[in-house]
């Protein structure tokens, strides 16, 4: 099998806050293969957005800092790339779309102004050539009347239209990887479906890989090939989408799946007891231990579990699966 397109290894990121240093990512690792849609799920605040933003190196520093690890993209470590090269990569090879289509476009410039600017930041194109590229891309995300969209200000478009503009803008240079940070969360359910369909179609057609950040397991089931589950700054389970739903290994993943509305035929909706630990003083050992129904003393509270492979395409970080079970 080929080397993965994106290979994040042991990435650690922290933020300075008033209360102290928050370790938002702790040795997080995951891969995205060529042409694959990789889901990244977890509760809000688990670090999934920070992880996707770290790939583009657009987390604000300070207060944030990338403390360690590697982000290999097409074989090169992005964390060691000089500023200028990193800038050229953004929008050209790796693009990103965000949750808030409301605020993600600059309110004082027209859509056309902003889209053409992206084209011309990456290749020399005349205004007319850039406009043609924009029209083509707006058409690809199935926006009606692309010409009038180009002339519009963001506030004149609906949320769904804005998000399509964002997608068009992100894909206009034909990147290899799209980082999608909860792009459908703020949208109506019907619009959500349309956006997902467009993303799936474009990914298939252009051979695009997507790292899809979401907290919605339903979206994962609909769109993704593989899934990484994050909890409190760590990746706790990675598997193909079938295995995650059929045989979730980590107790946290099991809780996530049990709490999807409509999964359980009757009875109350399941909620994982307790709350996410503080990233400033995380519990020692396994970070999920305080909320884990299977937690035992000893190993669970002393040693952080390593990732172990439980099936060909299924890894999990939990002491239930470490060699010889619990110590």
């Amino acid at each position, binding site marked *: 099998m080929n080397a993965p397109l994106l290979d994040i290894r042991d990435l650690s990121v922290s933020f300075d806050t008033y209360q102290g240093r928050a370790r938002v990512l702790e040795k997080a690792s995951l891969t995205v293969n060529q042409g694959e849609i990789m889901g990244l799920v977890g509760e809000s605040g688990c670090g999934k957005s920070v992880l996707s*933003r770290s790939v*583009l190196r*657009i987390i604000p520093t300070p207060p944030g800092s990338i403390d360690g690890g590697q982000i290999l993209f097409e074989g090169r470590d992005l964390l060691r790339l000089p500023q200028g090269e990193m*800038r*050229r*990569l*953004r*929008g*050209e090879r790796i*693009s*990103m779309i*965000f949750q*808030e289509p409301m*605020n*993600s*476009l*600059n*309110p*004082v*410039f027209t859509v056309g102004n902003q889209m053409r*600017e*992206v084209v011309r*930041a*990456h290749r020399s194109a005349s205004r007319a050539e850039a406009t043609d590229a924009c029209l083509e891309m707006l058409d690809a995300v199935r926006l009606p009347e692309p010409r009038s969209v180009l002339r519009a*200000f963001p*506030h004149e478009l609906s949320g769904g239209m804005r998000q399509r503009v*964002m997608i068009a*803008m*992100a894909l206009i240079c034909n990147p290899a990887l799209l980082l999608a940070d909860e792009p459908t969360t703020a949208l109506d359910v019907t619009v959500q479906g349309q956006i997902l369909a467009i993303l799936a179609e474009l990914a298939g057609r252009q051979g695009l890989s997507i790292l899809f950040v979401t907290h919605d397991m339903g979206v994962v089931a609909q769109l993704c090939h593989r899934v990484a589950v994050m909890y409190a700054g760590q990746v706790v389970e990675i598997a193909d989408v079938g295995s995650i739903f059929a045989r979730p290994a980590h107790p946290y993943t099991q809780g996530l799946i049990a709490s999807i509305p409509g999964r359980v035929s009757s009875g109350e909706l399941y909620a994982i007891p307790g709350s996410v630990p503080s990233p400033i003083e995380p519990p020692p050992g396994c970070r999920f231990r305080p909320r884990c129904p299977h937690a035992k003393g000893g190993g669970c509270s002393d040693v952080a579990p390593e990732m172990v492979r439980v099936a060909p395409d299924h890894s999990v970080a939990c002491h239930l699966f470490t060699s010889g079970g619990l110590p």
Partner: protein
Amino acid sequence: MRILAYIIKRVLAAIPVLIGVSILTFLISHAIPGDPARIIVGPKASKEAVEAIRKEHGLDRPLPVQYVRYMTGLLQGDLGQSIRNHRPVTKDLADFFPATLELTLASLVLCLAVGIPLGILAAVRRNRLADHVARVFSVIGVSTPVFWLGLMLLLLFYRNLGWLPGSGRLDITSSPPAAVTGLYVIDAVLARDWALLKEVLSHLILPAFCLSYVYLAVITRIVRSSMIAVLGQDYITTARANGLSAARVVFKHAFKNSLIPTVTIAGLSLGELLGGAILTETIFAWPGMGKYVVDSINSLDFPAIMGFTLLASTAYVVINLGVDVLYAFLNPRIRY
């Protein structure tokens, strides 16, 4: 078309404010002084003269009647007669207006040319050296008495270093350029008289700097804080994520947004500049309306003082109307 509707609305809203301004000015001149008639003729006039004026100006009538009379004159450009030189105040103010306009415009240009880059720098390098320097500089700016700053500048650049002239718009021996705009800088350029232009600028620089300093501090502060707010917005992250250069992100995407709050507050703070002009012109013997009004105070020339007050506040209201219009062009989301 929505912009047009917005502008019309703003203009209509300014009208009652201007009427209010005229009423307040009227009250200050007619209701506060014990004897407005004496104020008009001056302290040395005879009793009979005072009585005659009272009749002539209808000062024995009820206040509303007096106001109507005052307003009628006002609309015909009549601000009364100066006590010192018996000329219409309107004529005097018109004579002194270009000098004040030149000084305030020069200060404004200086403020914007220095204050905006400084504010941006402070925002981009937040909590680093440049930011701290800018903050100290602007705290001192808003705390400095303008008239004292002017004296200190004179002491340093005129008295001790001898680099710049200390008073007036020109050397005593020179004559002004042919009047086209009344602004000597522009008139000198139009006349292609470069030696004179140099002289005009050397006279302008100290008063313009003095007047701009306080306002500069205000501008720097607003630009800094609105830039900081804008730089935290999602669309800035988008712009960076799309691979735009840092310069484009800051100077195009962030800057235009930060201008929206900046122009509003900058317009409101222009009052500082107008007020400061009075003191600056006095210090530098700048022959403008500000010096005229202080001279009027010293000779208790009340019609002149009130004429200036009315003109300055009307200008202030109109400028802010202009700022509102500018705001509409900067911000495509006017929701009126």
